[in-house]
């Protein structure tokens, strides 16, 4: 049996392929937009995964540490360690800042962690972890830092000893992991000029700089430059204990806010990135509708362009079923070519996006199904037109 659709395509194959490519690029854009949305959600969740915590303990009445600023005394973890069901508690700090690298500024999220405890990078792609308690960092490869490079954070120089990957903040800034004490200093200690000015102000205050009380001024100045806070305490729950209950205990007795994994995910995904994610999602929906419309129009016009051939077919007595099958096959073929090209280009250009683009296989399958359905529906309209063609058109003008 001769495939009518195949014959027709062979006849106009350049036109057919170019139409497929155009369609493919459109589908590629739609898939990428879906990838951007998924990537955005994944960026928010990667924080949770990298923390490897069951409970986040933060300042009371705040949605910290990611969605709101939070400050907890750095000895609070000791009290938490004594709570029933707490297997481990580790201090962490988070600070989004700019780091200079040669000519350019890199925007990073500096994570202060205690080596060997929760909050450290879960895997490395090169180098080693932080072993010294000062002046070493592990950086995300997206920062562009290389092993052995020395970077400056506030007043100290740090050596990049390890590289990790896909460690970003919820806004997509790559992370830099540094020892907790250094991170506290970077976050809470003022710059040198500020310290000097503050000292001068204190010295000029006659109430504080009293000649009859030697030592008072020194003590005051020393107390001004100490920093004893962290942003959150990551708690691991001992096996056999319910995270919800442990978090409830912490909330009740320690006057701190405690979020479980589920609550924190809720905060990150549905609060922190809510508007921007909805923005992308809305655009994705519009793009999908526009794509579907364009696909339908292309198939419709393609059929319209073949009115004379269809009339000839009808004239020689081709059955309606054969004509309908031809149009449907062509339409589905066009959809398939479009999807393959779309998926290919989306995969190829995904790494060049500045933020993470996550192309899920499930999304691809859904995209394929949607393309096929849209193509089938579009072909129905085209088939209706084709079947209505008057065979006389073949002979007449």
């Amino acid at each position, binding site marked *: 049996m001769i495939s009518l659709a195949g014959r027709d395509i*062979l006849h106009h*194959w350049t036109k057919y392929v170019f139409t497929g490519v155009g369609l493919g690029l459109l589908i590629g854009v739609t898939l990428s937009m879906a990838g951007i949305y998924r990537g955005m959600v994944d960026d928010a969740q990667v924080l949770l*995964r990298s923390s*490897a915590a069951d409970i986040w303990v933060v300042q009371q009445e705040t949605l910290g540490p990611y969605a709101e600023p939070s400050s907890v005394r750095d*000895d609070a973890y000791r009290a938490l360690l004594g709570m029933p069901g707490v*297997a481990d508690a580790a201090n962490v700090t988070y600070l989004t800042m700019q780091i200079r690298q040669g000519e350019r500024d890199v925007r990073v999220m500096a994570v202060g962690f205690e080596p*060997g405890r929760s909050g450290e990078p*879960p*895997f*490395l*792609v*090169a*180098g*080693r*972890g932080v*072993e*010294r*308690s*000062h*002046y070493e960092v592990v950086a995300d*490869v*997206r920062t*562009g830092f290389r*092993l052995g490079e020395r970077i400056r954070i506030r007043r100290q*120089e740090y050596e990049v*000893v*390890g*590289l990790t*990957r*896909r460690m970003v903040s919820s806004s997509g800034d790559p992370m830099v992991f540094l020892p907790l*004490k250094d991170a506290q200093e970077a976050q809470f200690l003022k710059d040198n000029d500020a310290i000097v000015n503050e000292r001068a102000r204190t010295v000029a205050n006659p109430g504080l700089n009293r*000649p*009859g009380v*030697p030592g008072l001024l020194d003590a005051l100045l020393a107390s001004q430059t100490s920093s*004893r806070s962290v942003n959150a305490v990551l708690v*691991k729950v001992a*096996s056999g204990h319910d995270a919800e209950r442990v978090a409830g205990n912490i909330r009740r007795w320690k006057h701190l806010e405690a979020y479980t994994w589920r609550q924190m995910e809720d905060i990150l995904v549905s609060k922190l990135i809510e508007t921007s994610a909805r923005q992308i999602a809305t655009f994705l929906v519009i793009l999908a509708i526009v794509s579907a419309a364009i696909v339908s129009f292309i198939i419709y016009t393609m059929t319209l362009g073949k009115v004379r051939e269809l009339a000839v077919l009808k004239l020689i007595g081709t059955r309606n079923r054969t004509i309908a099958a031809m149009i449907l096959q062509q339409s589905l073929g066009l959809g398939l070519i479009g999807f*393959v090209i779309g*998926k*290919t280009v989306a*995969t*190829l250009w995904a*790494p060049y996006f500045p933020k993470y683009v996550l*192309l*899920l*296989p499930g999304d691809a399958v859904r995209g394929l199904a949607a393309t096929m359905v849209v193509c089938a529906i579009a072909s129905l309209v085209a088939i209706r037109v084709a079947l209505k063609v008057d065979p006389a058109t073949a002979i007449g003008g």
Partner: protein
Amino acid sequence: MNRRVVRAVGLAVLGLVLLTGFVLLMVRSGPLAPVRVTTAVLERGAFENAVFGIGTVEAERAYAIGPTSPGRILAVHVDVGSEVRAGQLLAEMDPVELDARLAASRAASARAVHALASAGAQVRDAEVRQELAARNARRYASLGERAFFSDAAVEAKRQEADSAGAQLQAARAQLDAARMDLQRLDAERVAVERQRANVRLAAPVAGVVTARDAEPGTTLVAGQSVLRMVDLASVRVRTRIDQGRSGGVRAGQAASIVLRSRPGFAVAGKVSRVELNGDAVTEERIVQVVFDELPKDFAFGELAEVTIATSRGADVLAVPGAAVHEQDGRRGVWTVADGATAFVPVRTGEASLDGRTVVLEGLQAGDRIIVHSERELRAGERVAVVESLEGMRR
């Protein structure tokens, strides 16, 4: 017809190639691709460990030199950086009335010496008088027995003699009082002299002046310092080491000190003392590290990075620290079995500063383990072993 067949075949081949390319692309990249990892083979070998800490250069023996009583500074004889001998005069406080009081005290002392001499002479005079009166009394008494004198005359002489004795006693008591007076005034004079000496501020030991806190004319309260000095023999780096890693530190261990002013230039030293008192707030142990040879230019309060060599083993099984992961509360490493990952729990020992962790049990020499991976691994995942992942930019 022939051309048509060629075109059909050509298009079919082209389509097939494109489809194969598409499938390959899907399998090679994205979530379906195997995880790229780097591996290492375990070997037994030498293991050296060290601990790292941050310290400040300080003098253990520092002296604040100031007056013991309120006063005004008269003169400061040395400046910051001066090297001073033990006992050298560094500064003087204004003595105000002390000189006049010293002169008065000295005069009073001298006068007391004279008063003592006068009292001595009076005693001698009383003695002579008493001797004469006693002799007369005895003479009258013996003549009175023979009735040469009346009883009244004898009694009068005896009374004279008794009176002279009492006068002698009084004179002796006066002599004692004058002697005591002299002692008292001498002591007072010494006290004033001491006070006078106290306004001269001298160096307690040999050392270097590090601060000049007050200038002549300034009024100070007791306890405020005029100058501060340190004993250069007691210069050390007060090093703070994380409690969690301070276990192996002992006095006598070799240390290398990098002063912040000269990065990359290590100075040799050694641990002189591990302090018994730690810092409970910062959770750090305090270790005193001395320089083998004191650097020429350093500043007190300067930051220093101190690395102390703690332990070494000759035949130790160690893995790169990046290979050790925690999975469901257990520490272990990932290995590759039939192209897929498997988690092997291990018991780990200390971690060295160069990023190696000692494996106590769970692995043998010759085992191949995963060190780096492009993402977090799960059990049973397909992996592709590559030489290095360092070139990754995303």
